[in-house]
């Protein structure tokens, strides 16, 4: 399904909206797309799962199933974080950009931030 804004055929990278018309063009097609909040919450969920699996693997380093899950979530996390930062600004200070956007987005402790 093409993006309603730019007509590209890519889909929402968060995989929560596989049938929605969203390509990450940051246009006004928010109704059926992944909002910034949803996308960040998906990244936070992945970060949580990765961290929790890491703690488990620290004391169960031979659990192949947990290692597979860790790889699966980490791969998604890297992909989605890259996509999010392109759209909404940096999550870490090594994000490369022509402008210093690090100071523009609200900080996580601020009310109304994500």
């Amino acid at each position: 399904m093409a993006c309603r804004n730019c007509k590209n055929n890519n889909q929402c990278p968060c995989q929560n909206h596989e049938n929605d018309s969203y390509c990450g063009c940051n246009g006004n097609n928010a109704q059926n797309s992944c909002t910034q909040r949803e996308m960040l919450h998906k990244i936070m969920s992945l970060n949580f799962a990765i961290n929790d699996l890491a703690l488990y693997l620290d004391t169960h380093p031979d659990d192949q199933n947990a290692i597979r899950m860790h790889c699966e979530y980490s791969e998604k996390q890297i992909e989605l974080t890259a996509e999010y930062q392109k759209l909404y600004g940096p999550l870490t200070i090594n994000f490369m950009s022509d402008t210093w956007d690090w100071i523009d987005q609200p900080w996580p402790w601020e009310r109304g931030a994500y």
Partner: protein
Amino acid sequence: MLTNMYYYVKSLQYPINIRNRNPKLAKVIISQYGGPDGELAASLRYLSQRFGMPDKKSKAILNDIGTEELAHLEMVGTLVHQLTDGASPEEMEAAGLAPYYTDHGWGVYPQAAAGFPFNAVTLAVKGDPIADLTEDLAAEQKARATYEKLIDLCKDDRDVVDVLKYLREREVVHFQRFGEALNGVQEKLYQRNLYLTGGNNNNCGCNN
């Protein structure tokens, strides 16, 4: 790829958006910021104890749980900030925070609910793996118990309780992982027929 540790990730571990300002709740929740069983004590305790650990699993678990506690410290600070942000001096006073307001204004200062400032005595770093990991098991239970008391006191604010329940649950997981690490240390010592004391961390080349 970031090459220097630590680095900051611009998101909380779990989202926090407190809709209603309530300095009274901040007054008690701040104990998990700088109190004896709070997140500052937990993070510094584990990140300091890790240097004295004898095996791979215990080094890793102290490093990684200590790091997660830093994220929890940020979450508790966020709760205190959002519960007091925008409160007038009169509101702070009505909540019993006049002394706090005098010294710290709207800043978040590491102190216990009773008002005494953070004390490094609560870190309890013995340099003895059995003593330290046993301490950590107790620390996780004390933090869990504190969160349960806070949930009782904050029960009318769903936004706050949601976050406190999340933090409580993490204490339970950490307790489990520390127990596994302690078992691992004890097993290793049993196999070698060694008594564990604080001075057994010399490198012997066995990589354990």
